[in-house]
């Protein structure tokens, strides 16, 4: 047993080195740097410890606060829509017999498309002159064509639409796994009792896929807190900072403006938000017995 222990450690070592150097050490380093003033464009000030000042500045920074608000709206609007559409798709996939494999493959397509490609694609669909959306709404009447991505009221909505389209399939797959774990005889029993389709959905399906719903909710929330590609490609955070989500703001401060200390404070803030949901997720993994999810 001892030698197999040593072998196990040896087997784990390479993975541990990569994860430590490129994930664990960086996260600690981000925490440490968030307590320093460090600006790449002003190298002569060096690395000056300034306590909580970056966090105080962050709290007083109206752009950061708006960015936080934008991120919360983004998450709060896209996740419920993804779960709703995802559930609809999962219910259909669960019921279809002819061509189920084909339909499931088609559903995977938005998931498989690189985010940068889907970002350019939606940017083109929302284009002010050649865009499909303008054509659908206004037909040939070019004078009424809108420029959604340049409009402070529409840009975030456009980005949220693109996000929902791309990520709904993932939610659908998790929910489908949940649906497939529900035993058929429960539905048969409900039918014998004279339950309507809605009653079956409300009293059999919904309670039994609650774990899957919660799982999809947490997983998608953690992922959508790090939205970046869509914003980078479609709007660069504009117009007037209306789509400036936190991860994009942190990127801008760190890599465009070289404000390493302040950027680290933003990074830590995003990390802590995400950690809250991650802990909820880990707790869920530990306690749930994956009712209806074991395959």
């Amino acid at each position, binding site marked *: 047993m001892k030698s197999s222990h040593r072998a196990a450690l040896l087997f784990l070592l390479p993975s*541990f080195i990569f994860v430590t150097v490129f994930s664990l050490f960086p996260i600690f380093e981000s925490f440490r740097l968030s307590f320093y003033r460090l600006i790449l464009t002003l190298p002569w000030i060096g690395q000056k410890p300034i306590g909580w000042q970056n966090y105080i500045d962050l709290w007083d920074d109206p752009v950061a606060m708006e960015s936080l608000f934008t991120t919360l709206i983004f998450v709060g609007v896209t996740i419920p829509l993804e779960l709703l559409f995802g559930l609809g798709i999962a219910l259909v996939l669960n019921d279809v017999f002819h061509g189920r494999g084909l339909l499931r493959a088609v559903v995977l397509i938005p998931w498989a498309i690189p985010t940068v490609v*889907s970002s350019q694609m939606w940017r083109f669909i929302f*284009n002010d002159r050649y865009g499909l959306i303008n054509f659908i709404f206004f037909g040939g009447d070019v004078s009424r064509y809108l420029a959604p991505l340049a409009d402070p009221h529409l840009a975030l909505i456009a980005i949220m639409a693109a996000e929902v389209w791309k990520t709904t399939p993932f939610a659908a797959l998790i929910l489908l796994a949940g649906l497939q774990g529900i035993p058929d005889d429960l539905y048969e029993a409900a039918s014998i009792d004279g339950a309507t389709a809605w009653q079956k959905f409300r009293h059999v399906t919904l309670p039994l896929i609650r774990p899957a719903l919660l799982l999809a909710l947490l997983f998608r929330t953690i992922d959508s807190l790090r939205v970046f590609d869509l914003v980078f490609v479609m709007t660069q955070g504009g117009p007037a900072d209306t789509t400036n989500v936190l991860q994009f703001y942190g990127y801008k401060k760190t890599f465009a403006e070289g404000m390493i200390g302040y950027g680290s404070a933003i990074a830590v803030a995003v990390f802590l938000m995400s950690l809250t949901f991650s802990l909820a997720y880990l707790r869920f993994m530990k306690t749930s017995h994956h009712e209806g999810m074991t395959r």
Partner: protein
Amino acid sequence: MKRPLALALFSFGIALYCLVPFLWFVLTSLKSSAELTATPPKLIPSFHLGFYQSALEKYGLLHYIGNSVIVAGAATLITIAIGSLAAYAMARLQLGWTKFYLMILLAISMFPQIAIAGPVWSILDRLNWLNTYQGLVATYIALSLPIAIWILTTFFREVPSEIEEAALIDGCSRLQALYKVVLPLAAPGIFTAALLVFIHAWNEFFFALIIMTDPDVQTLPVGIALFPGEYTMPWGEISAASTVATVPLILLTLVFQRGIVRGLCAGAVKG
């Protein structure tokens, strides 16, 4: 309405929802310049290949594809090699600290990129690995290992340990038992994990953007995101490059969808 009819209608609606936006982009790539700038937009193109030619010749599409193949290919191979070792240990020795390690890995896979981006950049800078393949590959290995180890552990646990115990008794070392007995038996699972790692590396943008600032080494997503064009965007070429970047992935997904779905669910669900 009859149930089968309703189902067929819903299925059709779902297929439209998933296909139309991308199909529109593919059709755009097959237009001629005149058709592209027509207002209102022309729906059916004349199946011109001019934009593909110009994406290849003027924008160096092949060169970005080459970089992506190198980076995603190397990252996949190394991740699976290192990940298999770790997952084998996890699957066979289910001790307290291996569970703890799995949990740490799961937590790491949820880090927002920005939380580690600055320090990763400085580490690569100190190694002189910015704008090199190995810099991005090393980052991708670290990012993919958690999910790869999770999926591989799930699959390795399904390989009965009796077979390899027999191999051990016959005088195989642990490492030999792994690659002679366990790997062949878990091949479908390894393939699934490799596919997911490859798709992730092929699609990744954030780290590619900050690590590869030199166009010579940039991957396809960076090339597509930073397509040059200030006032008039070269939409024809962008859509052509996007189609080329996406069609291989869609084909892989269609062919291996069963495994992918299973892998995604193993990654998200299994505890």
